[in-house]
């Protein structure tokens, strides 16, 4: 189950393409990559027998929050079943455990104490101590896990921000000292919108014996203009040969920015929010980068997505994206999905999520990316 990471190609600005090898995945996962966001271990709406219809090996990395299982499933039971891979029957998938899921388990800085961070979850506010967390991880046996972080929003005081860095580094030491047998440890890096604190945290974490880095504290109120500087401050002190994961960047533009700065793994909460809202992404899937010329309609869409709840699609018997090869586009029409949304049927979300994941929303960015930086041709396919 040992993880291996290799940078295949890097460019001067920091952007890079690599490959992540996990013991149980038959093929290396090319980075930059998206992690499928999950709820209790499975993608929100896609049943496990439909997962293989997503492209291989691109969608073979899942992000799981161990906190989800506190709602009704004891860690010992998971351990008895044989860990997450066995319980979810996803033997060939990579699983990365991060406490924060950016959807339902959000960091709650006011509740954090020196003993451990606090999270708002569907079953109330939870305080998680490093010891409990490491115990959960040992039972779940993910491929990758991020240590606990005291994530604070951008508006807290300097003092509180400084404390969060101190705590995060201490909890990292606590987690490492407990020395769980399972998985590769990703050290958590925080520091809010403060450049010096970010750098201090990154330097401290880089000194520790970890297999990779998890960057937290983003998407919590910092200004978009601040991000590139913060990211590069962190990345500059991190060793090149270890993978970097980030949480809290959602929009395609933000992910592009992250790729530019040299981040390798991203969460995909954007897909989830779009799906809930009834939006379908309509980027080009064309490898040549030509924007597929779908019919022009002036309402309810921008250049990248369409709102399938809109009335114009009531009779639209065309697929979401004409040249898309995903299950949804191959089998269903906009009119049908529009109807499903109208009558509140849950299949609508299933179809849309499949569409979104396969859609290749990052293709467009791949094109901009590879044009300017000539990175590996297939890089972004990972994100599809």
């Amino acid at each position, binding site marked *: 189950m040992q993880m291996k990471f290799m940078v295949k190609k890097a460019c001067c600005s920091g952007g890079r393409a690599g490959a992540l090898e996990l013991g149980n995945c038959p093929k290396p996962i090319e980075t930059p990559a998206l992690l499928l966001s999950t*709820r*209790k*271990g*499975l993608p*929100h*709406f896609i*049943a*496990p*027998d*439909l997962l293989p*219809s997503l492209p291989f090996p691109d969608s073979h990395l899942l992000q799981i929050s161990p906190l989800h*299982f506190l*709602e*009704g*499933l*004891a860690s010992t*039971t998971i351990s*008895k*079943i044989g860990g997450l891979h066995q*319980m*979810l*029957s996803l033997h060939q998938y990579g699983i990365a455990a991060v406490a924060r899921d950016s959807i339902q388990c959000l960091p709650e800085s006011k509740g954090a104490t020196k003993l451990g961070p606090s999270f708002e979850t*569907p079953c109330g506010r939870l305080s998680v101590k490093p010891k409990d967390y490491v115990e959960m991880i040992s039972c779940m046996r993910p491929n990758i896990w991020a240590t606990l972080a005291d994530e604070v929003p951008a508006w807290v005081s300097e003092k509180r921000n400084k404390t969060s860095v101190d705590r995060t580094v201490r909890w990292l030491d606590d987690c490492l000292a407990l020395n769980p047998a399972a998985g590769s440890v990703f050290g958590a890096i925080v520091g809010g919108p403060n450049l010096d604190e970010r750098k201090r945290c990154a330097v401290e974490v880089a000194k520790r014996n970890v297999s990779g880095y998890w960057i937290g504290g983003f998407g919590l109120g910092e200004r978009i203009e601040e991000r590139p500087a913060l990211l590069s401050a962190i990345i500059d002190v991190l060793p090149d040969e270890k993978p970097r994961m980030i949480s809290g960047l959602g929009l395609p533009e933000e992910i592009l920015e992250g790729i530019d700065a040299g981040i390798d793994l991203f969460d995909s909460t954007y897909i989830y929010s779009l799906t809930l809202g009834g939006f379908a992404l309509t980027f080009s899937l064309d490898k040549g980068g030509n924007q597929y010329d779908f019919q022009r309609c002036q309402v309810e869409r921008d250049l990248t997505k369409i709102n399938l709840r809109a009335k114009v699609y*009531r*009779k639209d*018997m065309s697929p979401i994206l004409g040249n898309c090869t995903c*299950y949804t586009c191959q*089998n*269903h*029409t906009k*009119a*049908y999905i*529009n*109807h*499903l949304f*109208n*009558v509140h*049927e*849950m*299949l609508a*979300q*299933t*179809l849309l999520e499949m569409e979104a994941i396969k859609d290749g929303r990052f293709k467009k960015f791949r094109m901009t990316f590879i044009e300017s930086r000539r990175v590996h041709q297939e890089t972004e396919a990972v994100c599809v």
Partner: protein
Amino acid sequence: MLPPLHSGTRSRQVGKERANALWNRNIVGQSGVVRMFRGTSLQAPITWCLCFKPKPKPKTNTTNMLPPLHSGTRSRQGYSTTVTNAMALVFEVLGRFNRARAARLTLPHHVCQTPLFMPVGTQGTIKGLTNSQLEDIGCQIILGNTYHLALRPTSELLDEVGGLHNFMNWQRGLLTDSGGFQMVSLLHLADITEKGVTFQSPVDGKPMLLTPEESIQIQNRIGADIIMALDDVVKTTITGPRVEEAMYRTLRWIDRCIAAHKRPHDQNLFGIVQGGLDPILRDICAKGLVDRNLPGYAIGGLSGGEDKNSFWRVVAQCTAALPEDKPRYVMGVGYPLDIVVCSALGADMYDCVYPTRTARFGTALIPEGVLKLKHKAMAEDTRPIDPTCPCMVCKNYTRAYIHCLVTKDAMGSQLLSYHNLYYMLQLSRNLHSSIVEGRFPEFVCDFLHKMVCSRKSPGP
């Protein structure tokens, strides 16, 4: 072999039994077939059916091209003219055991094996499952609700896009109900007159008149393989003149439905036997419908809260009265035990929301009955839902994991619906193959043994 379950209660129920015997002799006993059902318990039809030695399998296949096997005297009596309606189905009986039969039902879109269970996809989708999953688990016909589809997305839209098959991209069989059942389920919204039913639309609150002609026109536009005549449905728990009125109205409406049916060569119009629990009314209705020579017949108005004794009596009477060479569909039946009982009595098709609805409430169907996955005991149970089930869910997931999903996450409903539908479809397949292979009694014994004898201890 099970002991006759009614034997113990015999002495206490002499009075009731006499009434039953009278009922049998007077009403259904003319042919001598139904006389056998004298039990007072649910298992009576089954025990009766198992008392017979298996007869040599009839080798002749019956299609609807051939004259009816039951000689037709009953249905044709007193009528000189034979109505011939166009049919878009072929019904070939492949095997029999007493009254139970296994058949091949060829519809315009799919060749089906009966007995068959039809999952209910009210609004053009089985809640939470994709078409590919439904094909994987062997779903043959999906039922759509005319009432709901007419409201949204409207039948005009469905017609415009080439029917419901095209709209939901489902290549196999479809059946639409008439909207009549919603008279019962949404009664506070409905006003029933000779002209039709006036519903209050739940979408915009406007009154919406559903006449037999309208119902058929809508169903013609939806384009399902099987369409149902509009019937006047009353709750089975109601007695008195309303039942009689509803039955006669159903008979009057069937002619209006036949006249309104514009696509008899692509769609099969099934008539529905009504008449509540009254054997005389049921008999009149069945005879009346058989005279219309429809492609198939349904037994309606059941599963509305009547006791099981009345339920199977009505099914037994109706299946005996309906022609041998046409499919028989018991509407709204979905408990596994009821399906086995009805199949033993000669019914072929069933539909119910039970497997999917109960899944959404956290209950799994297993050979021993049901498994309540919300129960605390499931939290640490690392066995699959049903260790003998080869479905995707049972192969991959533990009760403990499903326990933490059910009723909280969409995935819980999806996985449980998948298993429950698999269970129902597998049951249909087993019924079919056991009848064809001449081991129906063994199958029923085995089924009952598991279901009845392990009631006290859920879970193997």
